[in-house]
């Protein structure tokens, strides 16, 4: 059978990039499912789009849907005939209800029902055009967007108004309507060329027809063209146009054909912090920045316009004027900020509420200062406390500056510039600037240990604050970025080698909160942080159960670096042939102790021992415990674990020959204490019972 391609183009008023990208995935998914349901096979399916069209292209579709067998199930098979071999009334009734006779019924085994009567009919294939005319409108109404709207009387909901539908199977129109729009074979070209109407002869000629009209419908092709244009420009300018991926994507969905507009701006604006220059260009105008071979910003920009180079001079002038106006605004704000010492901005924090019940940002600053001071003494690392406190005092001051009020993304960073301007040292200023780091899971941490400690103090205060108000993230909801704060804390601690009892740190953070925030949820917060630590450890290649083995240790105040050392050594020694056995024996010992009905001291009385295996085991335990203590003191968990492994034979013998739950309660309790002494020994290293 001859196969043709099928096409659906939904023409809409301008939609943003993220809408297009997600709609493309959905178009493919829903169309494939509905085609399968309709028994209409296809060879390929593709979706693409621009800011004003979403396109679904299905290749190799036969003219008819496949013939389908339809089955109707009836009563149990044994009811087909009676003892005399005649059809029963039930069978006859079922046949009649299906418009047939009992002799046409078959038998089939159906799960949960056994053998039942079945009547099969063949549904002939129908035209692909008809099937598609039902499928396409369904696909359109299934599309989900981050936000929908209504615009016409049927109150159909979609991201933006639908203004045209082009739908073809080969050269035949596939006719249907959605939201008051009838499908046809007409689309429009570039809006920059007046949105001329284009009649499309067949689905197969669609992409060519639009290419002719200077529209690159396929996202990947358009991106390639855009990259090509930018690369060519870089070469011509002998500079590098910085092709920021986010900006590329955003621009990709603001145009149907990329035309670059290059121009320069006054050197004077490069006196602004370069991050600010980037932000003005990228966020406010969607322009690309230009740098030299050393990565240093140069006074040029590249804007992308849609489709034509007619009036290029107008656009260039327009872009230059807008950029200049924005830069003038920025310079105005920046120079006003520089005229004021940071302390004055800090004082204004009292007018900014942090959170209801938790005071102002000035109150939060004081808490961060206190906590940072506490951490200096508790982090087990030499830090310059003077520098920590100097930085902590200014971490939020930039929030009241003109630049940060205008460009909130620059919080922290502007703090660096203003701290330096107020006479703080480069290192302290840098610590202020690094306060919000790391910005994401893999991005850089604060540069200095002092900066890291201040940043940690801020994160712990934020975490404690929200937990105290019961604002614990659930599911994908995490409006205050608590997961990021917890993960950042874990990374800061581990990568700076801080030896910190987080249980105490969390308590210290809670203790500073005003009494109105009454929940002191140390346990859930510690667990929340632990979950991020688990992610870090498993990411580093350790197995989930190995990480679980040190959770108890962490929750009871163990430091994260110590946890990591333990996990590392468990992982390294896991290949030892005795390992699984000793873990199993420990699990058994732990269970026995848990089920004991008397309180256990963990110190057995040697005179009550009856069997050699008991004495041998205890002998080994006492001999080893001193060595183990020394290894643990040296944080040498590999040696510690090796010690535990060495006990395997006597432990196996013990469990094999000795019955712990002896009849004589004195003997039994003594044996329980022996097992308890063993468990204590193991638990000093890790909870090996978690290993699977």
């Amino acid at each position: 059978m001859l196969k043709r391609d099928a096409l659906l183009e939904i023409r809409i008023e301008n939609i943003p990039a993220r809408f297009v990208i997600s709609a493309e995935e959905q178009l493919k998914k829903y169309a494939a499912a509905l085609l399968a349901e309709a028994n209409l096979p296809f060879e390929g399916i593709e979706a693409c789009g621009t800011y004003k069209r979403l396109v679904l292209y299905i290749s190799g579709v036969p003219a008819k849907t496949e013939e389908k067998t339809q089955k109707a199930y009836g009563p149990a098979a044994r009811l087909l005939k009676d003892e005399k071999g005649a059809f029963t009334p039930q069978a006859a009734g079922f046949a009649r209800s299906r418009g047939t006779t009992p002799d046409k019924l078959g038998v089939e085994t159906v799960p949960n029902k056994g053998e039942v009567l079945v009547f099969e009919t063949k549904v002939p294939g129908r035209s692909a055009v008809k099937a598609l005319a039902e499928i396409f409108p369904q696909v359109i109404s299934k599309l989900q967007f981050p936000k929908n709207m209504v615009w016409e009387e049927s109150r159909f909901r979609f991201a933006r108004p639908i203004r045209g539908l082009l739908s073809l199977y080969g050269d035949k129109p596939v006719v249907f309507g959605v939201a008051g729009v009838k499908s046809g074979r007409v689309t429009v070209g570039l809006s920059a060329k007046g949105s001329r109407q284009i009649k499309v002869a067949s689905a197969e000629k669609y992409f060519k027809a639009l290419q002719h009209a200077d529209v690159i419908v396929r996202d990947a092709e358009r991106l390639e063209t855009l990259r090509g244009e930018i690369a060519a420009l870089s070469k011509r300018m002998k500079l590098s146009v910085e092709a920021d991926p986010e900006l590329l994507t955003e621009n990709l969905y603001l145009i149907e054909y990329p035309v670059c507009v290059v121009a320069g701006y006054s050197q004077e604006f490069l006196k602004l912090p370069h991050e600010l220059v980037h932000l003005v260009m990228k966020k406010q105008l969607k322009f690309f920045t230009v740098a030299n071979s050393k990565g240093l910003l140069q006074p040029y920009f590249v804007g992308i316009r849609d489709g034509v180079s007619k009036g290029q001079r107008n656009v260039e002038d327009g872009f230059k004027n807008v950029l200049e106006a924005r830069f003038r605004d920025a310079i105005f704000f920046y120079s006003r900020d520089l005229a004021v010492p940071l302390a004055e901005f800090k004082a204004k924090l009292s007018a900014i509420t942090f959170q209801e019940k938790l005071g102002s940002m000035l109150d939060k600053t004081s808490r961060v200062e206190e906590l940072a001071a506490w951490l200096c003494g508790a982090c087990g690392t030499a830090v310059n406390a003077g520098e920590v406190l100097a930085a902590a005092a200014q971490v939020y001051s930039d929030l009241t500056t003109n630049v940060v009020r205008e460009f909130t993304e620059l919080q922290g960073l502007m703090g660096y510039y203003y701290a330096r301007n107020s006479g703080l040292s480069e290192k302290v200023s840098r610590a202020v600037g690094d306060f919000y780091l790391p910005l994401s899971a893999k991005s850089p941490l604060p540069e200095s240990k002092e900066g890291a400690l201040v940043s940690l103090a801020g994160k712990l205060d934020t975490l404690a604050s929200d937990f105290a108000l019961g604002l614990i993230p659930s599911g994908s909801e995490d409006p205050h970025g608590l997961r990021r704060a917890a993960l950042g804390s874990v990374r800061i601690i581990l990568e700076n080698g801080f030896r910190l009892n987080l249980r105490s740190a969390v308590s210290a953070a809670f203790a500073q909160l005003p009494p109105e925030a009454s929940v002191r949820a140390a346990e859930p917060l510690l667990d929340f942080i632990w979950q991020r630590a688990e992610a870090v450890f498993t990411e580093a290649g350790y197995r989930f159960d190995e990480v679980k083995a040190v959770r108890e240790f962490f929750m009871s105040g163990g430091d994260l670096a110590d946890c990591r050392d333990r996990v590392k050594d468990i992982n390294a020694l896991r290949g030892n042939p005795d390992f699984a056995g000793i873990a199993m024996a420990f699990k058994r010992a732990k269970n026995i102790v848990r089920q004991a009905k008397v309180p256990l001291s963990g110190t057995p009385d040697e005179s009550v021992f009856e069997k050699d295996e008991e004495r041998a085991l205890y002998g080994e335990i006492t001999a080893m415990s001193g060595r183990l203590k020394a290894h643990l003191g040296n944080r040498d968990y590999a040696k510690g674990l090796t010690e535990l492994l060495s006990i395997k034979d006597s432990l196996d013998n013990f469990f094999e020959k000795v019955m712990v739950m002896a009849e004589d309660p004195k003997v039994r309790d003594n044996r329980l204490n022996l097992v308890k002494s063993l468990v204590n020994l193991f638990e000093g290293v890790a909870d090996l019972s978690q290993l699977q």
Partner: protein
Amino acid sequence: MTFQDFILKLNQYWARQGCALIQPYDLEKGAGTFNPATFFGSLTSKPNSVAYVEPCRRPGDGRFGENPNRLGKYYQYQVIIKPPLENIQQVYLNSLKAVGIDHTEHDIRWIEDDWESPTLGASGVGWEVWLDGMEVTQFTYFQQMASYELNPISVEITYGLERLAMFVQKKKRIFDIMWTDRLTYGEVHKGVEEQFSHYNFEEADTENLRFNFDRWEKEVFRLAAKGYHLPAFDLVMKCSQNFNLLDARGAISVSERAVLIKRIRDIAKACASSYVEANEPAEKKEKTNA
């Protein structure tokens, strides 16, 4: 093209599209959306096509006439069309042509920007229109007004007249815009900016502003209950203006701000309910949770 020609051309263009040229409403307001032709006009089920210049006041935006780009009083040109024309985007682009901007010789971009007005309980879906990088128009399909789901939908096109005039006249300062061939925008308005910046930031009697706010608020409820939604809505505009003045005077704390905004939303809602009940009881608009 002078500033006044600009307005004349837009009037001519939109009149040809069938819009009634409703004149500016004679009370102070922060945006054209407060004009009763927009507020009540978008609430009915009747078709509504209007256009008008609307003087607006944003007390906090004034800069004593010193900043080349910021004003405490300025002009919007507003178009409301219900139901929206199918080719409304093109009709808008043609309006630019009417004021001398051929869009095929410039870069036009539609940047996602969903407008909302918490004081009016209004929201919509739409864009900022960028002309060679400069925002010149807010283009919105209203979805809600005074917390009512709208049916049918109105499209609102709001031109920033000063921005467009600067663009066409290639001026870098608002005050340099030519109002006529001889008169500049600065000559008409600079004194206004100076005077009102002093009033807005320094002189306005905050006690009086609060006192009037409270009194008018009560009056809105009383009038709305009697079905006098039009005078009631005048007082909503006045309350909103007092709120903006208090804000410019720095007299509103963060928590009070949210409370005042809700109080204005509630009185706007009372006017809308009074209007809907009196005019379209059969319609019984769907109320939202807002």
